[in-house]
């Protein structure tokens, strides 16, 4: 009888992590910034139909990098979680924290139990209601590791370089146009190209909006904000 071959748990986890990281690093990046009027999400995404950034609930947005079908699956699970919770309790009881924890549990379980881990990182952002409460940004990694970020967050292929850039250049309370320009500069920090409005997917959680704070910024408005309008 042949012996079942043995792989140490350390080695198995290492291999899986390496596999997931490789998948994620191939993808384009996303930057999130806290701005004066809410939270800004900027993704490099040439497609106008397949979104990387989307609405989850009134004050909560989602962003994902890596393998599209995997983070799309997580996005829909998030919307389902939020809508059921809001329907059975009240809209105010749906929080980014609970959702981020659910994502963390799901990704952690998949990482340890499935042969193939998810090659994704996701981000859950919740804009503060005003009066004293603060924005929340959670960053969840492929293995379920969860971090709460302040001021800015980056994920995807060049996340480390982008974070380093933002550490030097981020300022609190930026208006939308300046923050957007900063975000685009951050996305191109490792590349020798410029990004136009056609390469970007941009959305904000706009504190000034009624109830549903999520708002996509269409390409026409983008070129205006970027100051590249012809």
């Amino acid at each position, binding site marked *: 009888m042949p012996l079942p071959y043995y792989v140490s748990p350390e080695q198995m986890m290492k291999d899986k992590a390496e596999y997931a990281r490789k998948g994620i690093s191939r993808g384009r990046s996303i930057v999130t910034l806290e701005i004066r009027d809410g939270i800004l999400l900027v993704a490099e995404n040439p497609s106008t139909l397949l979104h990387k950034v*989307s609405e989850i609930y009134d004050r909560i947005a989602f962003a994902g990098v890596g393998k599209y079908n995997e983070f799309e*699956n997580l996005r*829909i699970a998030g*919307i389902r979680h939020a*809508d*059921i919770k809001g*329907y059975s309790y009240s809209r105010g009881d749906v929080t980014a924290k609970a959702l981020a924890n659910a994502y963390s549990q799901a990704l952690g379980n998949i990482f340890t139990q499935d042969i193939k881990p998810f090659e994704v990182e996701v981000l859950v952002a919740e804009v503060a209601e005003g009066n004293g409460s603060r924005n929340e940004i959670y960053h969840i990694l492929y293995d379920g590791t969860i971090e709460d970020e302040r001021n800015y967050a980056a994920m995807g292929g060049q996340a480390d370089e982008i974070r380093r850039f933002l550490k030097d250049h981020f300022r609190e309370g930026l208006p939308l146009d300046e923050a957007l320009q900063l975000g685009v500069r951050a996305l191109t920090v490792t590349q020798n190209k410029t990004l136009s409005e056609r390469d970007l997917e941009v959305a904000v959680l706009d504190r000034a909006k009624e109830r549903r704070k999520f708002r996509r910024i269409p390409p026409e408005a983008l070129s205006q904000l970027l100051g590249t309008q012809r």
Partner: protein
Amino acid sequence: MNDQRWQHLFRDYADSSFSELLRRDSPHLFPGPEPHPPSGPAPVEAVPHGTTVLALRYRDGVIMAGDRQATAGYQVASRRIEKIFKADDLSGVGIAGAAGPAMEMAKLFQTELEHYEKVEGDNLSLDGKANKLGQMIRMNLQAAMMGLAVVPIFAGFDEKAGVGRLFKYDITGGRYEETNYDSQGSGSKDARDSLKKLWKRDMSRDDALRVSLEALIDAADEDVGTGGPDLVRGIFPSVKTITRSGFGDVTDDEVKRVCETILADRAKTGNGG
């Protein structure tokens, strides 16, 4: 992976309906009668009922209006309930019938539309929304037979056609599109009679507002369940407009002003009984 399994997965991924999700994952939250309702007399008299709502087309879209009273038997159950709900940016539901199940249905319907919009990244068509509401009413049929009928009016702005449209329903979920106006609830006959005489094609917003309030005042006049404008407590019918630019409130102040004008005109001419 066998056929059945991937087809099941496919259905699950492609499903963007909130009510289906609720029924599958949280059936205890799904509105409707208990599987084994307690026996005994039907609770028809005991629960609050919403009374009169109406919708009519005008130049820019549709107006929806409702009185504010809920009636249980011969008692006023509430003087301030809201019967016109925003379903999404371009549509609204006016509820009549058993107030509890009706409000629950409106809430489920709102969540259904928002859920679809978020999952699909696109809005349902107006026909799709109207059809979905019909299915929800049909699911309430068993409760309707026990006297807890819910019969809403659905109205919205059809972006494709560029016009306002309105739909009425029966308790079985039957859906009927009305071209000009309709009313639902205990005072609906009187409101409809009034609308029949006053409605005109392509009315302005001001005219449409006046006509809808005239109809509600007539319904309150003739039907004991329907509440009229309450000048003492400052309670007035709620009126909403749905146009290309979205779902809008008509302010209490404006409604009050128009109500006062109508009542003053009626007092002057001796009209209205």
